[in-house]
């Protein structure tokens, strides 16, 4: 029953909105008809047409008001007013395209940057990992005094597994494999893991099976392959199971295929998964672990239990486990890894830029509102309500905000790709995909920001009293103090935020400079390195030595190569084969308790090729043959650590697990310390041994054979990148050659993460600086315009150019220094978060802060001096006449 009524009502409403002009016409028509009828009637009564007309109009009781009442009844005035406001806004923005462009650009920059980073943060830090109950997965690693994250040994891992907080734990290690046979050799990332891995993750293979404990213990050559590899090599044929693939020259039987979307969060996409080797040496750290928390157990509780385990291990094995702790991190955070801190820092920077942008836009709008004060005053006088004016201004900012939101979202999608690309140079990132919910939030946020920016002028307009406004507008004298005060606050805030960003960028620039100046201990110029993973064919030490000798000889004969050498511990990878040993003529510390150092098996020319100076003793030479006296060279750090104040030459050491009791190794030389694992890591104890004298020959579990080339070139190293592998393949055509690069490249890559962060932070700081300068400039300019009459009077009364300029500049200087002061306070608190990315400098480095402040102050003065210069050119006669 109600239905009918609504049919009529809705029809009318729709007509009012969509056929607005027709409805208006009908209204006019209806009234005209009435008037005509009335006039006819009055004329019939004997009035003249003119009298009749005025009588008719009188009888209408105010025809315009009545019409307006009828319009009001349509109840769609809100929509109407909005459309009107929109038309007004677009007209007024078209009149001032630069203002519109600057506003949209500013909001877009802030919004685009923030959303781009948020998109990455969302993909990396927030989106849950694709495993069942992924929140219960944790990553486990060892910690040392110097390293927050270190690999651990298999016996240690076995002890970690006993923690009752876990329902399961698995060991893993990332490895690079060369896949040969059935196509060209390709270098693939692989995962060595313990048999528990898939069960801990809560998934199973797509087809086939995972390997078992027995296979792991017996080093069975079995492998699971990735879905992509399965498709590529076997065309997705289930017959792949039981077939053979060749990894680093060894045959592996394919026993299963990993699920299509499988990603191991800590390494990216492994192409193969093979059993990890179980080495019983506690000092040989080569693996990490993941674990699944028991339901209801919190990560902090697990960490407490692990702390207890670590303490017991330290006590039981004081040498191998000295200072070693265990750290459990949510797998999600661990997967974000190194990129977590940079991302959060960059996100704060982006938010700062957005806030600064908002402040700038707010300032612009205020300035514009003040400039249009006379217009508003006039319109108020003509009957426009305060609310109406405010809503018009808000609509204007809403139009700008919408434009900025649309452009900003587009640039966020584009920018997140760009950013991800920049970060991916160094950090392992998951797939970055735009999240539409996030973009929706961003859109809303931009709108809110835009509206907030438009609020102060709207409020001012709503508050302003006609009289004052008209008076001010006509006189052009000093305007409301409150607006000006608010604008000052905005600019001071901008300056403060910008200062924090500048200080942060400054700290990072200095860290990077310091890192690049650190004494490496070797000469990286003209050095090419490459890794040669050795297959089981070279398991026999003599055969291996002969093979490597052949490679060195053929490479040494290559024109342009000065010195060819090889060793087993490639630099700057953060790896390092640690071995346990004990000293001659010292109390036997007992089994499992020896000294620990990084062992590097090297060829004779190694020190020359690397450019590492020998400090004492002699270099290895042709006399150090396999059957000769075992010799070693140690680095200065080790000599200092083990034989402080003694001569290390002639001292002897022995590997703890050596089954040969007489295998003592004599120290014949001391090499200079090298920052071997990264510019930011202090040198550790290192032992160099001639590879011919394989020191592992009588170990029960020797490390996997490996060789890394070091080639010092006379020519440009880049010109040899094709010739080197070709030469190696003349010796063995199946020999994989990996990571062929110049050492300078490797060094530069080791700093790439810092460099990317610095670049992005500097970029944000630069945008912020530009905005802040524009803010200072705009405010001082406005102030000059506002004070033109006053400055004119001063000039007329004899104030000199300098005095007037100083007057103006002082205002800018005051704002800048106030902002800087707040910025310093904020910076001292906030730059702490940078600590992880800094090197050799404290986050509150006073020099950096002072320098940044001085620089910023200078820039602020320059920004203020441009309007000041304009102020000095004020002609008193002109400005006073305007009064």
């Amino acid at each position: 029953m109600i239905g009918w009524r609504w049919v009529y009502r809705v029809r009318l409403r729709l007509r009012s909105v969509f056929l607005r002009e027709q409805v208006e016409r009908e209204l006019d028509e209806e009234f005209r008809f009435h008037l005509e009828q009335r006039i006819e009637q009055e004329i019939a009564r004997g009035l003249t047409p003119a009298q009749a007309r005025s009588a008719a109009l009188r009888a209408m009781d105010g025809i315009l008001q009545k019409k307006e009442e009828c319009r009001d009844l349509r109840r769609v005035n809100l929509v109407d007013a909005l459309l009107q406001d929109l038309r007004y806004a677009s007209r007024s923005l078209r009149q001032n395209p630069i203002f519109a462009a600057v506003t949209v650009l500013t909001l877009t920059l802030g919004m685009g940057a923030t959303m781009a980073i948020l998109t990455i943060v969302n993909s990396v830090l927030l989106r849950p990992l694709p495993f069942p109950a992924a929140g219960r997965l944790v990553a486990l690693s060892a910690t040392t005094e110097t390293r927050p994250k270190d690999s651990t040994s298999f016996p240690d891992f076995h002890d970690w597994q006993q923690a009752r907080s876990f329902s399961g734990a698995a060991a893993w290690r990332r490895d690079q494999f060369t896949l040969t046979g059935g196509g060209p050799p390709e270098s693939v990332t692989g995962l060595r893991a313990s048999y528990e891995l898939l069960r801990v993750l809560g998934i199973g293979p797509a087809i086939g099976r995972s390997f078992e404990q027995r296979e792991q213990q017996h080093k069975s050559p079995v492998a699971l392959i990735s879905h992509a590899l399965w498709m590529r090599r076997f065309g997705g044929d289930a017959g792949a199971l039981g077939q053979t693939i060749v990894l680093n020259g060894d045959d592996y039987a394919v026993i299963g295929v990993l699920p299509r979307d499988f990603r191991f969060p800590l390494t990216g996409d492994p192409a193969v998964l093979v059993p990890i080797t179980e080495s019983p040496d506690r000092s040989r750290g080569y693996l990490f672990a993941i674990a699944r928390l028991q339901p209801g157990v919190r990560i902090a509780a697990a960490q407490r239990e692990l702390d207890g385990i670590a303490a017991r291990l330290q006590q039981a094995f004081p040498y191998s486990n000295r200072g070693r702790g265990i750290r459990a991190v949510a797998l999600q955070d661990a997967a974000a890894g190194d990129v977590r801190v940079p991302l959060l820092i960059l996100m704060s920077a982006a938010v700062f830029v957005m806030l600064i942008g908002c402040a700038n836009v707010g300032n612009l709008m205020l300035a514009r509102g003040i400039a249009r004060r006379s217009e508003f005053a006039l319109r108020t006088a003509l009957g426009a309500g305060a609310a109406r004016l405010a809503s018009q201004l808000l609509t204007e900012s809403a139009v700008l905000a919408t434009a900025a939101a649309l452009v900003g979202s587009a640039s966020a999608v584009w920018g997140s790709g760009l950013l991800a690309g920049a970060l991916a140079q160094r950090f392992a990132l998951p797939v970055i995909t735009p999240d539409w919910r996030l973009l929706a939030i961003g859109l809303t946020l931009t709108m809110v920001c835009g509206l907030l920016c438009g609020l102060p002028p709207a409020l001012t307009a709503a508050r302003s009293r006609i009289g004052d406004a008209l008076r001010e507008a006509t006189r052009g004298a000093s305007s409301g103090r409150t607006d000006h005060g608010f604008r000052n606050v905005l600019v001071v805030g901008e300056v403060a935020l910008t200062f924090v960003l500048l200080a942060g960028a400054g700290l990072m620039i200095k860290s990077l400079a310091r890192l690049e100046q650190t004494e490496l201990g070797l000469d990286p110029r003209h050095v090419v390195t490459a890794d040669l993973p050795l297959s089981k064919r070279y398991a026999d030490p003599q055969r291996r030595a002969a093979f490597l000798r052949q490679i060195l000889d053929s490479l040494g004969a290559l024109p342009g190569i000065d010195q060819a050498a090889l060793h087993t511990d490639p630099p700057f990878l953060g790896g390092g084969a640690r071995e346990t040993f004990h000293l001659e003529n010292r109390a036997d510390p007992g089994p499992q308790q020896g000294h620990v150092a990084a062992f590097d098996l090297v060829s004779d020319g190694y020190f020359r090729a690397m450019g590492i100076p020998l400090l004492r003793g002699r270099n290895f030479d042709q006399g150090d043959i396999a059957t000769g006296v075992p010799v070693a060279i140690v680095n200065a750090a080790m000599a200092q650590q083990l034989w402080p104040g003694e001569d290390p030459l002639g001292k002897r050491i022995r590997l703890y697990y050596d089954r040969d009791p007489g295998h003592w190794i004599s120290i014949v030389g001391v090499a200079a310390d090298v920052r071997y694992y990264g510019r930011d890591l202090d040198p550790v104890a290192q032992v160099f041994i001639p590879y011919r004298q394989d020191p592992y020959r009588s170990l029960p579990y020797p490390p996997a054979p490996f060789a890394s080339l070091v080639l010092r070139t006379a020519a440009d190293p880049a010109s040899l990148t094709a010739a080197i592998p070709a030469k190696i393949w003349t010796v063995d055509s199946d020999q994989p050659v990996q990571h062929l690069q110049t050492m300078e490249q490797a060094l530069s890559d080791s700093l790439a993460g810092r460099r990317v962060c610095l670049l992005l932070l500097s970029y944000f700081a630069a945008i912020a600086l530009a905005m802040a300068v524009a803010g200072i400039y705009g405010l001082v300019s406005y102030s000059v315009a506002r004070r033109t009459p006053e400055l004119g009077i001063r000039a007329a009364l004899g104030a000199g150019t300098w005095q007037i300029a100083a007057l103006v500049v002082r205002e800018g200087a005051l704002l800048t220094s106030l902002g800087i002061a707040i910025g310093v306070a904020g910076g001292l608190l906030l730059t702490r978060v940078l600590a992880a990315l800094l090197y050799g400098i404290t986050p509150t480095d006073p020099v950096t802060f002072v320098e940044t402040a001085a620089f910023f102050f200078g820039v602020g003065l320059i920004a203020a001096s441009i309007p000041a210069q304009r102020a000095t050119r004020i002609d008193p006669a002109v400005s006073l006449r305007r009064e």
Partner: protein
Amino acid sequence: MSKPSDLVQGTLDLLLLKILALEPLHAWAVSQRLKQVSGDVLQVSDGSLYPALHKLEQEGWITSEWKVTENGRQAKFYRLTRPGRRALEREAANWERLSGAITRVVRLNEV
């Protein structure tokens, strides 16, 4: 909305509904009819009629269409809708009750 002061709130609606219940009329004719039937007692300014009619239309009680008058002009004719007829019955009943009550009060004998 301004209303003639001597009309009790809501009675104008009732009058208009009643007049339109008899036959569809344009606004001018409604004003003439109002004057005619009330014997000039109920004075509604020409102008005030329109907001009142438009309000009834917005409420869905009357609807309008453009038709040709007897002397060949286009005019907007209002007619009662079905909900409007029910509203009229309701309003009329209310009026009866109200006016009856008021009449009874007014006729009370003073002591």
